[in-house]
C-alpha cells in the first residue's frame, strides 16, 4: 500500500513538471554530539534561505520549500546513515543540506545519496578524502577541503621567496592532514621541506622537538598546531634556542593568544586563516537579525548550501536531483550577475528568464575541482607584535 502511495506520489511529481509543488529539503546536522553547539545556527542558516525562497514564490512556478531536520550525530556513521535513509525514503526529500562532520558525510554519501541519486551539499565537511570520493556528481561542499589551505600556504611562502621550510604539526588528523597537504603542494611547486615532524600537545617542554627541527634547518618554521597547546610551546622553545627567527602559522595558530604570548618576538612571521572581505558576510548577518548568530562557524556556508540547491533547481527547471545536479557548479560560478544573501528572489527571476548568475552568497562561494569551495583566506603578517592583514586571497 505504502509503495503504491509512494509510486503515485512520485508519478504525480513527475507529471507536475513546472507546476507548483511542495519541495522537501533534508537538513542533516549533528544536533547531538561533539558539535551540537554549532549546528542550531547552521540549520537556522539553511532554513533562512528556504524561507526566503518560499516567501518569494518564484521557485519553479511558485513551489514552496519545507525543511526536514535529521540528526547526523557527527560521529556515529550508522545512526547518520539511518537518519538520512529516513529522510530520503520516508520524508521523500529532493536533496540534502549536509552532513556536517566529514566521517558521517562520507558514510551518508556512499550509503544513501549515491544509491538513491540524491544531491548533497555539505557546509562543513573539510576532509581532503571527500574530494576523491565517488559521488556521480551528486556531492558538493561550500566549505573548502583542508588540503586547500595547504596549497594556499605553499603559494604564500613561495611568493615571499621562502624555498625551504621545516614543518611541525600537532599529532592529530587536522595537523597531519594539513602538514601533508602542504608538503605535497610545496614540493610540487619547487619548495623543500627539510623535516615534517609531529609534536604532542600538552607537554611541558618542547626543546627536544625544536632540536630536531633546528638540525634539519630551513628558512622558516611552519607550525601546524594549536595556539593554546603545543604550537605555542614549539614557538617559545624555538625562539629561546634561537633555532628559527620567523614562523608561518595556519589557522589553528592565529588568535589573540599569539599576540599575547609572543608580541614582537615573532615579527616578520606570516600566516593565513579562513576569512573573507566579501560584503556577503555582513549582509547575511543583517538578514539573520536576532533570529540566530550569523557569525557562528559554518552558518553562512549552510545558508549558501541550501541556496545553491534551490538555485540549481530553478536553473534546471526541475527538483529532480538527477537533473539539477549538473547546474550546481553553473549557478555558483561566473559568468553571471553576482548574488548576495537576501537576493535569492532576484536570482530566481534571472534564472527563470534564462539569464546567468554567479552566486557569491554569505561565504563568497567559488566551487572548484570536484565541486568544493575554493575557500577564502586572509593572509597575515606579524608587524610590531600585531596580526595585520596583508590581503585576502
Amino acid at each position, binding site marked *: 500500500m505504502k509503495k503504491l502511495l509512494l509510486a503515485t506520489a512520485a508519478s504525480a511529481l513527475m507529471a507536475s513538471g513546472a507546476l507548483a509543488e511542495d519541495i522537501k529539503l533534508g537538513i542533516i546536522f549533528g544536533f547531538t554530539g561533539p558539535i551540537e553547539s554549532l549546528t542550531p545556527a547552521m540549520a537556522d542558516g539553511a532554513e533562512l534561505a528556504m524561507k526566503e525562497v518560499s516567501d518569494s514564490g518564484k521557485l519553479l512556478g511558485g513551489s514552496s520549500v519545507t525543511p526536514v531536520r535529521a540528526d547526523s550525530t557527527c560521529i556515529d556513521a550508522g545512526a547518520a546513515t539511518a537518519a538520512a535513509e529516513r529522510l530520503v525514503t520516508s520524508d521523500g526529500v529532493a536533496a540534502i543540506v549536509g552532513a556536517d562532520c566529514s566521517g558521517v558525510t562520507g558514510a551518508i554519501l556512499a550509503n544513501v545519496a549515491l544509491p538513491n541519486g540524491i544531491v548533497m551539499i555539505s557546509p562543513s565537511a573539510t576532509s581532503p578524502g571527500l574530494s576523491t570520493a565517488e559521488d556521480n556528481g551528486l556531492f558538493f561542499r561550500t566549505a573548502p577541503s583542508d588540503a586547500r589551505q595547504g596549497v594556499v600556504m605553499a603559494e604564500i611562502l613561495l611568493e615571499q621567496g621562502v624555498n625551504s621550510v621545516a614543518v611541525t604539526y600537532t599529532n592529530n588528523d587536522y595537523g597531519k592532514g594539513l602538514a601533508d597537504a602542504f608538503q605535497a603542494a610545496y614540493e610540487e611547486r619547487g619548495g623543500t621541506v627539510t623535516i615534517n615532524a609531529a609534536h604532542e600537545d*600538552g607537554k*611541558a617542554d618542547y626543546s627536544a622537538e625544536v632540536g*630536531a627541527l633546528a*638540525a*634539519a634547518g630551513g628558512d622558516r618554521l611552519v607550525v601546524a598546531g594549536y595556539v593554546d597547546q603545543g604550537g605555542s610551546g614549539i614557538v617559545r622553545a624555538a625562539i629561546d634556542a*634561537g633555532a628559527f627567527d620567523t614562523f608561518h602559522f595556519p589557522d589553528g595558530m592565529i588568535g589573540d593568544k599569539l599576540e599575547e604570548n609572543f608580541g614582537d618576538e615573532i615579527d616578520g612571521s606570516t600566516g593565513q586563516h579562513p576569512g573573507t572581505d566579501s560584503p556577503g558576510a555582513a549582509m547575511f548577518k543583517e538578514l539573520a537579525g536576532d533570529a540566530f548568530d550569523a557569525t557562528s562557524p559554518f552558518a553562512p556556508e549552510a545558508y549558501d548550501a541550501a541556496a545553491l540547491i534551490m538555485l540549481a533547481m530553478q536553473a534546471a527547471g526541475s527538483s529532480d536531483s538527477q537533473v539539477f545536479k549538473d547546474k550546481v557548479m553553473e549557478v555558483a560560478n561566473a559568468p553571471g550577475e553576482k548574488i548576495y544573501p537576501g537576493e535569492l528572489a532576484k536570482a530566481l527571476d534571472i534564472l527563470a528568464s534564462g539569464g546567468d548568475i554567479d552566486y557569491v552568497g554569505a561565504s563568497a562561494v567559488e566551487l572548484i575541482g570536484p565541486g568544493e569551495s575554493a575557500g577564502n583566506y586572509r593572509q597575515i603578517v606579524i608587524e610590531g607584535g600585531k596580526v595585520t592583514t596583508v590581503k585576502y586571497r
Partner: protein
Amino acid sequence: MDFLNAIVALANYVLIPGLAYGSQLALGALGVTLVYGILRFSNFAHGDTMAFGAMVTILVTWWFQSLGISIAPLPTALLALPFGILATAALVLATDRVVYRFYRRVKAKPVVLVMASLGVMFIMNGIVRFIIGPGEQRFADGARFIIKARDFKHWSGLSEGLALRTSQVITIVTALVVVAVLFWFLNRTRTGKSMRAFSDNEDLALLSGINPERVVMYTWLIVAALVTIAGVLYGLDKSFKPFTYFQLLLPIFASAIVGGLGNPLGAIAGGFVIAFSEVTVTYAWKKVITYLAPGDWAPDGLVQLLSTDYKFAVSFAILVVVLLIKPTGLFKGQAV
C-alpha cells in the same frame, strides 16, 4: 670555526638542557630514594606532591606579584619557595599521620604502602586540579635570559646561537646547593646520622635508642623541601601543568632505580644518566656531524636515533635493562 660551531650547537641543544633537566630529575629522585631508604616503600604520590608544592609556590608568587614584591632579575618564585615548602611539609606530615602511620603500626608489607601511596597520588592529583585547574600556568618573571641566542651570534660571529636561560642557571645552582646541604646534613648532623642508621638497619637503630617517629618526620620534612624545589624549578624552566608532573614520575623513578634505590649519591647520578640519555637519543645529530665531518661526508638524514615522541620510552628501556642486569643499580642500592 666549524669545530666551535659544533660545540656551540651541542651545548645549546644537548648539554645545557640536559644539565638542567638532569638537576630537576636528581632532586626528584633524591626524594624518592629517601622515602624508599627510610620509610621502605616506593612513593607513587611523589610527582603529584611536586605539583602541589609548585602550585602553592605559584599562588604565593602571584600574590607577591600583585603586591609588587619582586627580586628582579631573579624570579619572584624563589621568594615564594619557602612558603611552598612549608605548605607541602604540612601536607605530607598530615598524609603520614592519616595514612602511612597506620600501615607502619600494623607492619604492613611494602606493597600495601605502595598501593596506599597510589591512593594518595589520586587525591593530591584531585586537590591540585581543584585548586589551580588542569591547564598550563606561567609564573616565571624576572630576566628570561642570561645569554640570548641572537646576541651570542652577533658577539661571537658564529653561525650557531647559544641561549642560556636564567631558569637553567638557577636550576643547576640550586640543585648544587641543595645537594651539598643534604649531604652535609646526612653525614655530619646527629639527625642525619640517625636517619642513615635507621635506613641501614632498622632494628639496630631502634635498639640504640633512635626515635623512629622523629626519623620519619625529618624524612618527610626533607622530602617536602626536595619535591617543592624540584617542582618549582621544573615549572620555572619549562611550564607548570599538573599532568606533566604526574608523567615525571617515570623518569624520576627510573633515575632513582638506575642509581640504586635508597642511595642518595646514586639518585643524583641516575638523574643525569636518564636526562642525558633522553636528550642524546632523541637529538638529531645532523648539524653537529655536518660541522665536524670533513667535506662531503655530511649525512642526508637527521641522524636521530629515536623520534622525540619516544622520550619516555628511553627512561623505560633503561629502567628495564637495569632491573634485568643490575637490580641494585649503579651505586649499590637496595634491590627492588
